């Protein structure tokens, strides 16, 4: 049995249709209600529907053999897994954003609001910038508006939310998209099916280009 951790929501739906097309279907997916586990016994597949930010946890701990997760979450949590494919969907960019007209005052500590604590720390330590993290779970854009922080570090898809809140991107430093990951042990013991999955998904990506 191959366990696949799929993020709940829009990204999960797009990924499922790719897997479906590749022959890793699970008919129960289409009329899913509140189930968290669905199976295709004949093909030996079990889909686990998990919170997007938890996919890598399931995979690293072997509760799932493979999974699909955003690169932003991989950068933040650095799990010990194989990252086998860039699925090219769920695209966005990891950015530093600030109110229009913001000028960085290097004589004082920079206050950074983010939910990507490790990513932000890493970004500023590379630039040797003294900073303070303000951890938020969502609506990060409120940080600079309320004076809670000077800038934010967050993922930006269309930029509409930033615009609506009068923020601009200062530096877009990382391309983000959905990645196909595998547990290192599973990759060795269930290599045939995982490799087949990677090849077929890879072929779809080639065709789509």
């Amino acid at each position, binding site marked *: 049995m191959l366990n696949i951790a799929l993020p709940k929501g829009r990204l999960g739906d797009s990924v499922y249709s790719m897997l479906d097309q590749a022959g890793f279907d699970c008919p129960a997916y289409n009329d899913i209600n509140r189930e968290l586990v669905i199976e295709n016994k004949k093909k030996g597949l079990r889909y686990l529907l998990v919170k997007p930010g938890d996919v890598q946890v399931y995979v690293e701990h072997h509760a799932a053999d493979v999974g699909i997760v955003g690169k932003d979450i991989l950068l933040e949590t650095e799990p010990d897994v194989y990252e086998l494919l*860039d699925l090219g969907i769920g695209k966005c960019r990891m950015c530093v954003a600030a109110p229009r007209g913001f000028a960085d005052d290097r004589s004082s500590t920079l206050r950074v609001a983010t939910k990507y604590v490790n990513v932000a720390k890493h970004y500023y330590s590379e630039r040797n910038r003294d900073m303070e993290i303000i951890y938020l779970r969502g609506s990060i854009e409120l940080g600079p508006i309320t004076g809670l922080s000077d800038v934010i570090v967050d993922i930006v898809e269309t930029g509409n939310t930033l615009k609506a809140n009068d923020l601009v991107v200062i530096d877009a430093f990382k391309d983000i998209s959905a990645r196909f990951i595998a547990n290192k*042990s599973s990759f060795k013991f269930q290599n045939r099916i995982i490799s087949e999955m990677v090849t077929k998904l890879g072929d779809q990506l080639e065709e789509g280009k």
Partner: protein
Amino acid sequence: MVNRKAKLKPAEKATLELRALYEQFGYRKYKMGKFEEYGLYASNMDFLSGDKVLTFTDLDGRLMALKPDVTLSIIKDSHADLQSSEKLYYIENVYREDREGNNFVEIEQMGLECLGNVDDYCITEVVALAVKTLKSIDKNYILEISHMSFVTELLKDLGLRYDDYVHMLNLIRSKNAPGIVKVARKIGVPEERIDDLKEIPSLFGPVKQTLKRARRLVINEEMQEGLDQLERITDVLKAMDAADNVQIDLSLVNDTNYYNGIIFKGYFEELAKHVLAGGQYDKAMTKFGRATGAIGFGLYLNEVSLLRTEEEKYDVDALMLYGAKEQIANVAKAITSLRKQGMSARAERSRPKGLKCRKIYRLKDGVLTEKK
């Protein structure tokens, strides 16, 4: 009926069996102190699997650490030279960071090291012992072997900055072929070399086949020799009854400042993470001013203990209850008679909470009756 034996956990069983195995090959048990001066780790951070060390100030003011690693202490204390080698094994606790829990944890580790004149036989023996180690614990294992020079030589003349080099090694470790291509293009690696680099993640599998595929990527003598050595060693494993489930994975690469030559990792099908890791660390020896080679491996007993075992239905076969006025000679006699029947038996005045027992007996005035 035979009296039941103590039920050993997988990690306990492993420790017993493996000590015998290592001693059969002439390895000696090595016991060391719990603490080490912090300086040893501060100057060798890259050798450790994490960068957190549990420190304290000793009564004389020295900054000490609870060992996060055993190998560094062994290297430091070693008297091995090219004429006189040391073969030893250890069972020690190490203290490391648990990233998810954000705290320190105690990890029981068993390991084996060979220091001195490390030749091909010596390497083969250690790899064979790693295979036998895995096999004795669970038959669903895989040992993957790699050679450090394969990746390091491929990256050597690309003129990578240190940051890019480390980044590239991480991409290779996570088999991230798309990432390798992207970064290599950004750095300006020639296209034909990018084709080679992106092959590395897929160079894994059965020994002969994988080595054959890998040979197409050879660009210099060091790489050639690395693959030849892998072939020589894996060829001999069979003679040592240790060739089963051995695979090559050339995307396996350790820290380049300490390791060189043959490296390997062991996995169990049931477990999430590798349970065994090891390799040649001549470079680490050089750092400590030792002009000799070394190879060894560690087995993480805390991971091994996660292997599923049959759950015990009962804590004890027979629970025997006796009253306050019972003569203790009668209690002793009754317990002995129950044990003679092959049961484990526990004498109590009243039934302990949560104790699972198969049968309950009552002892009154020396007469034993089973309670239905």
